[in-house]
């Protein structure tokens, strides 16, 4: 394995490409969105999408936010060579909803809002609330792992350029 600090900077692009792949998949190949047990999931882009364009020696940030934001400007930015640096997602399971953001550079998960846990009124309630919260947090984390694995398998596949990358290029161009 290579040096950690060097690896962080050298492979940031994997995180950015993952988020771009994820957006494409959410738009056009939702059948690929399954959890670790191959169950279909209901995942949508939330209220915030951040892109960055580093061409022409400048860094241009494009932030799209708001309720149910139109993503046309994001696609236009992709067309101009930008990549997705941060995406907010909403995971729905029955009546339960999770909101969370993923940063491409680090794959850190920010601002996770889980369905509410039971109230803590006495000290005895803490253990139950903690275990419930961990269970609820595992949901988006495990989903992120499953989706990232799908992306990595596609990226290292010999068909990446002809298949996945080509489809994403066509989507951006359309």
């Amino acid at each position: 394995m290579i040096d950690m600090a060097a690896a962080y900077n050298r492979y940031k692009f994997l995180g950015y490409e993952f988020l771009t792949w994820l957006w494409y998949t959410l738009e056009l190949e939702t059948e690929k969105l399954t959890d670790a047990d191959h169950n279909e999931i209901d995942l949508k882009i939330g209220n915030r999408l951040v892109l960055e364009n580093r061409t022409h020696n400048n860094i241009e940030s494009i932030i799209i936010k708001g309720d149910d934001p139109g993503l046309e400007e994001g696609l236009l930015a992709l067309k101009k060579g930008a990549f997705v640096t941060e995406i907010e997602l909403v995971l729905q399971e029955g009546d339960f909803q999770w909101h969370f953001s993923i940063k491409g550079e680090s794959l850190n998960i920010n601002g996770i809002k889980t369905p509410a846990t039971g109230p803590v009124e006495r000290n005895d309630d803490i253990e139950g609330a903690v275990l419930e919260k961990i269970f609820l947090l595992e949901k988006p984390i495990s989903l992120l792992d499953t989706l990232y694995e799908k992306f990595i398998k596609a990226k290292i596949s010999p068909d990446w350029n002809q298949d996945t990358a080509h489809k994403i290029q066509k989507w951006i161009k359309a």
Partner: protein
Amino acid sequence: MGLLTSSISITRYKVNGELQTPIKESIYNGLRKNLIQDIDKQPIDRVVGWTSFENPYIPDFQEESLFFGSHIIFSLRIDKKTLPTKLIKKFVAIETAKLLKQSGREFLSANEKKTIKDEVIDRLNQGIPATPNIYDVIWAYEEKSLWFLSNLKAANEELETLFLKSFDLTILRLFPYTGAYFMKTLSDSEKDLLTNLSPTQFSE
């Protein structure tokens, strides 16, 4: 208890290595060895240490407040005193004037100025309480996985250093490369492919 707040940020780690048995004993010892120290009324301006999840201001590691199912939960506490620059400037000016008057000189040497500033900072630090920042740690020992409930770079660096010092175990941050490299389903030849990957240009 950051874990029970409504909005959570997580940095994930892979834990390398194993603790000496009995494991619980090693965990207690590691935590107690680097328990947060009280720096109020002391000239020290910053301290980092472990504290208990349920009672972070009066740390006490009891089994029921450390082990939750298969998870070990505790917190990293960083206490810091922040002195306003204008306050330091005021007292340095007072002390400088006092020393100049006593010595009958017009100027002080660079060394003398530094000594005055250090003494002023030490004195002021003794008079203000430290502000605590608490970040929860959730360690799934069997899975060699650790969640740190902060994305702040400085806090993550403190965690990595203190964890190694306390448990003699390294923790590796999961980011795009390591997240892929440590996937259980990736073969050695696939790891080589991963290392040789380059960016794809999606636009024309």
